[in-house]
């Protein structure tokens, strides 16, 4: 661990030991539920039922992973989740770049007023608009369909806010020079502005992907029980009701492990940008 900050030599005193142990203990405690999830997915059904619980699987095996695919249509759910998360993420990044650019670099009447209204929607819990939204997507013929999950989520205020914060820092000279050369505004946005706010794009990609991969309330409502269109998180919830006994624990844990993987893997790669963006929006905002 000390290799991460090679410039620092840690003093070996009792205070150092105490703080180090505290950090370690909290990290272990925080990781425990996820470690337990993975370990349980490798246990035999008998081990899952044992009292008191067994911590370490005696003969680790992947049976639960092959079985879980037979209980719910796991492949289909994964494709549905990937579709939802990828389409919303790409759309949110594009719409947020465009609006963020306008709010950061254009002067127009009512700009601050419009921005304030958009930002206010960031603080609105989704349940407040759920009931009429469900009817609206019904009018648009989107209910019981994956498109109904995706279409209302192609833009969001947080993305606009994040992009505006970062694009403000792009020098005006850079943009003006391109305008003099006769570049169109869209060309300027995607060829000059976007490449200089890549950290914000990375952060927003992670935010949007994780949010929509994990999202449950809206898909559950709009899909109206059409199991073909279920994302992985809803299929997971059906696993639990499929068999309420402890027999099922391995299956549930295997399913949960699979569902957790895509957002966590993405996080490992993009973590740095995520943290920076929280600093940018939380403190300076």
């Amino acid at each position, binding site marked *: 661990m000390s290799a991460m900050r090679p410039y620092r030599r840690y003093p070996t005193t009792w205070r150092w030991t105490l703080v180090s142990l505290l950090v370690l203990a909290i*990290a272990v405690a925080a990781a425990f539920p996820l470690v337990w999830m993975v370990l349980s997915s490798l246990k035999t059904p008998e081990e899952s039922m044992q009292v008191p619980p067994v911590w370490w699987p005696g003969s680790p095996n992947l049976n639960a992973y092959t079985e879980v695919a037979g209980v719910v249509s796991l492949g289909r759910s994964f494709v549905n989740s990937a579709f939802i998360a990828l389409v919303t993420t790409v759309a949110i990044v594009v719409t947020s770049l465009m*609006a963020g650019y306008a709010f950061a670099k254009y002067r127009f009447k009512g700009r601050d007023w419009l921005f304030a209204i958009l930002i206010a929607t960031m603080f609105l819990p989704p349940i407040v608009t759920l009931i009429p939204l469900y009817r609206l997507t019904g009018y648009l013929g989107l209910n019981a369909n994956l498109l109904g999950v995706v279409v209302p989520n192609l833009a969001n205020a947080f993305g606009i806010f994040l992009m505006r914060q970062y694009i403000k820092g792009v020098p005006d000279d850079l943009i003006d020079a391109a305008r003099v050369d006769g570049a169109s505004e869209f060309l300027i946005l995607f060829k000059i502005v976007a490449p200089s706010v890549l950290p914000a794009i990375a952060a927003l990609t992670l935010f949007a992907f994780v949010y929509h991969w994990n999202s449950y309330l809206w898909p559950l409502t709009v899909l109206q029980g059409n199991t073909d269109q279920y994302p992985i998180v809803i299929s997971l919830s059906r696993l639990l009701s499929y068999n309420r006994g402890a027999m099922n624990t391995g299956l549930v844990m295997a399913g949960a492990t699979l569902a957790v993987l895509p957002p966590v893997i993405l996080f490992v790669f993009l973590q740095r940008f995520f943290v920076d963006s*929280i600093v940018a929006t939380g403190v300076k905002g």
Partner: protein
Amino acid sequence: MTGRQTRSTIGMLAPATGLIAIFVLVPMVLTIGLSFTQWSTQTGFETASFVGLANFTDLFGPTSIGRDFRAAFGNTAIYTALSVALILPLSVVLGLLVHQTFAPGGIVLRTVLFSTYMVPMIAVALVWSKLYSPTEGPINQMLGWVGIPPQTWLSSPKTALVSIVILNVWQQVGYFTVLAVAGLTQIPRSLYEAALVDGASAWMQFWRITLPLLRNTLLFSAVIAVINAVQVFEPVALITQGGPVNSTNVMTYHIRRVGIERAQGGLGSAMAVTLMLSLIVVIVILFALLRDRGEQR
């Protein structure tokens, strides 16, 4: 403004603004309008009939509609208060541990705490329902090692709501820790150096410098924590279905059950409006209590 500028302004703003207007602002206005009507969610908006404040008098009246709503409202209030009371102090303590360079492991701790924030709430609920299991779960087993008797966790009305608060805090605290770290990095080092010269202890430095200067961060964290707390849905929908004995029936779950499953769109909208007004009141109070008034510095 020239024509070209106007056109590109509209072009840039139209997609995001249009989508948010149609799918957030319009439903918001509709929720308020529908709250004064009797309307079945399964039928078109034109079937809504105006009933004045009848839905609201039901919510605060003596019938079972009012009793269930007030129970859900009370549970949400307790849930929110507990979440904020746990998350804010934890985020400061964990933030200090991540931020310090005195001992190793800060970045590792941040990574672990933050990765829990990436886990779908459904998976969190599933895993914790097994961890909490009175006989096969490791939590009661570990409590047994230190001589604490087994707890009922999700299966008793006395402990179910608190159990859901705990699993939610576990999932979310990493985000608030990063916010706290962001706040800590903004505090000038020179303040601590001056305090050292004056002979202030680390304890004094925390109360006199760190905490007061984290005020704005904590205000932001409190607002986000409150808004997140009223959205709790997955553990309730998945594990407890509002029980046992209505002890975990929270607003998001109750509004969806009334407004979507029972299709009482008008009544559900009135509940949503009440929730939103309450949120505004809470946020205004938080600002009044925590806002940096400037005269202290």
